[in-house]
């Protein structure tokens, strides 16, 4: 009886611990002592994620939000792939928003990193017809929000 009970327990634990399906934007393994992903592998993984032909807006947003939650500035090749993905799902606002988010990720080194990013993604921008936030006038506050207590 004890043996069969412990067998059932093991089965339950195994089902709860081992995920049923793997999601592509999430690394395969999050435990310590495992293989460490190099920066190049990370960039390639995200580039491939955004380069998927059947990607939809939901997944693009998920990938961008994940990138913005990490302690890094996305590599220009990831940004390029993301802009192309925005083009495929016909979402212009998303493309501009992602460039803005990448600028915000530069933190206090924005004067060093952001010009480099713009220089690298410039061909993609002119190819797709995307304006930088500066060209749209979004580097400075444009509109003010009405105070919710005055509405």
């Amino acid at each position, binding site marked *: *009886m004890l043996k*069969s*009970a412990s067998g*059932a*327990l093991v089965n*339950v634990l195994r089902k*709860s611990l081992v995920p049923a399906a793997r999601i592509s934007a999430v690394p395969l393994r999050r435990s310590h002592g495992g293989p460490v992903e190099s920066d190049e592998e990370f960039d390639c993984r995200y580039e491939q994620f955004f380069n998927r032909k059947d990607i939809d*807006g*939901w997944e693009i*947003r*998920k990938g*961008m*939000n994940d990138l*913005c*939650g990490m302690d890094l500035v996305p590599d220009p090749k990831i940004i390029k792939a993301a802009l192309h993905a925005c*083009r495929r799902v*016909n*979402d*212009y*606002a*998303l493309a*501009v*928003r*992602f460039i*803005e*988010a990448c*600028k*915000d990720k530069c933190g206090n080194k924005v004067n060093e990193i952001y010009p480099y990013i713009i220089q690298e993604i410039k061909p993609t921008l002119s190819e*797709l*017809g*995307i*304006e930088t*936030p500066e*060209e*749209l006038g*979004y*580097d*400075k*506050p*444009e*509109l*003010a*929000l009405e105070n919710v207590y005055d509405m």
Partner: protein
Amino acid sequence: MANFLLRRALLDAVRVPVCSRASSSSVGELAKIGNREWVGYGFNGQPNYVDRPDFPMPAVRFRADTPDIKVLREKEKGDWRKLTLEEKKALYRASFCQTFAEFQAPTGEWKGVLGWSLAVASLAIWIYMGMKIFVYSPLPESLSEENQKAQLRRMLDLKVNPIDGLASKWDYENNRWK
């Protein structure tokens, strides 16, 4: 039988009641967003809109689909180089409420916070002055300088702490401090 009961108890303990959560809260949230498009996974899984730098793509578009926005969206499917700057800005504002520069702009709220904090802190000084004038009796006589000197003289006369304290520092032969 015991085996079955144990398994049920374990399953009940680890399982999250998915259906109950989805039916109770998601429907309510969906009613709130009206006919805005739900385009992504919200920061807590709900269809909500907040401009956040660490989560820049909110789950819903900010504006509901009006006919002129629908026209713009049709135009957006074509070449983006043919869109005018105004149309691009309109598209941005249809998806998002504020730009990064706008929601990160300083509000100047700190001035009010600092001012009111100091005003409230100064209230304590007014209360103290009121107490001083209307509540407290005058300080006892023994706190005057004359009385303090007399008290010290008496302590010396009593030879308080003669080894390493007060009296040890007094020269009793010449009647002055050592």
